[in-house]
């Protein structure tokens, strides 16, 4: 993901709250500290399909915003 970001593509990593710090650290380690991290509620495992759709609902507006910002 970090390599794609370096090539200028719209790139983001979706993380749940407990993994936010790990995500930030990894982005820094791989040389793209500005890599967008899209936050969704925890957990991601052990969910019903409806709940998975709910998580996607959290992420999609953030993805759209990212694409808009990239285009602007």
């Amino acid at each position, binding site marked *: 993901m970090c390599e794609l970001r370096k090539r200028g593509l719209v790139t983001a990593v979706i993380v749940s709250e407990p993994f936010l710090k790990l995500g930030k*650290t990894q982005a820094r380690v791989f040389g793209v500290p500005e890599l967008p991290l899209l936050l969704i509620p925890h957990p991601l495992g052990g969910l019903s399909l409806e709940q998975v759709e709910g998580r996607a609902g959290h992420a999609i507006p953030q993805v759209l915003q990212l694409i808009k910002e990239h285009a602007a």
Partner: protein
Amino acid sequence: MTNLAELLKSPGASLECEDDFDAVNELARGRGWSDGLPVVPPTASRVERMLAYCDRPWNEPVARMAPRYGEATPLRLAANAVMAGCRPEYFPLLVAAVEAMCEEPFNLYGIQATTHLCAPLVIVNGPVAKELDINSGHNAFGPGWQANATIGRAIRLALVNIGGAIPALGDMSTFGAPSKYSYLAAENEEASPWEPLHVERGLPREASAVTVIGAECPHNVNDHESITAEGILTTLAGTLLAAGTNDVYYHAQPLIVMGPEHAKTVASGGMSKADAKRFLHEHAHLPMRRFSKENIERRLRVTWKERLGAAGLDAPVYMVQRPEDILIAVIGGAGKHSAVIRTFGATQAVTRALKLRDGKYAKSVADFRKK
């Protein structure tokens, strides 16, 4: 020859602290350079004594340790070895273990950052195990032996201080495991009826080697009654069964630690290691109905699509995918016990020989001393 005083002048390589045990430990704890236990102050003179057993440049990384991908230079590793209480002659083994766990198939990133409770387990083989007095007998995985305790601890400190395995930051293990403090033992080669682990994995018997495994803690296998190979192996296969293991979803390599008495019983029936592995593979499976409905639909049928995609609920789910994936080592003292050690799953064991800089196998750790 590397000059330590020169190396320590580079930014961040050293810092001043009051010459006091408590002050050093306060500083280490404050900076997170800790496994929670007191450390031996890594003074320049102690670090230099450790580096006497290093035959390569002290500031040249031997590996980069995930998830921080910090450079594991001999200098940094030596500081961690001092902090852990290692004797200088242990140092070549620490370097080999770190190199092994940073090889791609081991997946150190996954093992460090996962929510699973795994830790790198190091099995030591060859003459160096005896030379360094590494315990392979009674309580080999437990306390009481300086080499086991401190080399294992040095690995953990390096994983934290160089690799960034800081709880809730780079180490996301849901609850961790006591094996994260230290997890190292030697194979009891003298008590084994079979070829040692490093020979089975392609090295000459006279070589010394480390094998790293992304492992859970040992799970005991009590069998005081069986007097045949089939009996012992049936109990072992039965203990491999678990619906909640990572191993069932990967081409995993669980380790069977056979106690010497069990190993003798198995071998006395004429079984080779390969025979024992075939038996264990063949007998370690659960009917799919023993897994939860969700795990069947979302994991098993997807991961093993070809075999289980459309299979009925009585179809066997194998705990290990192929006989050759099972690792066997003979460890321990007297007693009718063995142990099953499951793994992180998404990891392969890596064996690395103790080699000198010129590529020759080390006959003794003394070979690493600067001439």
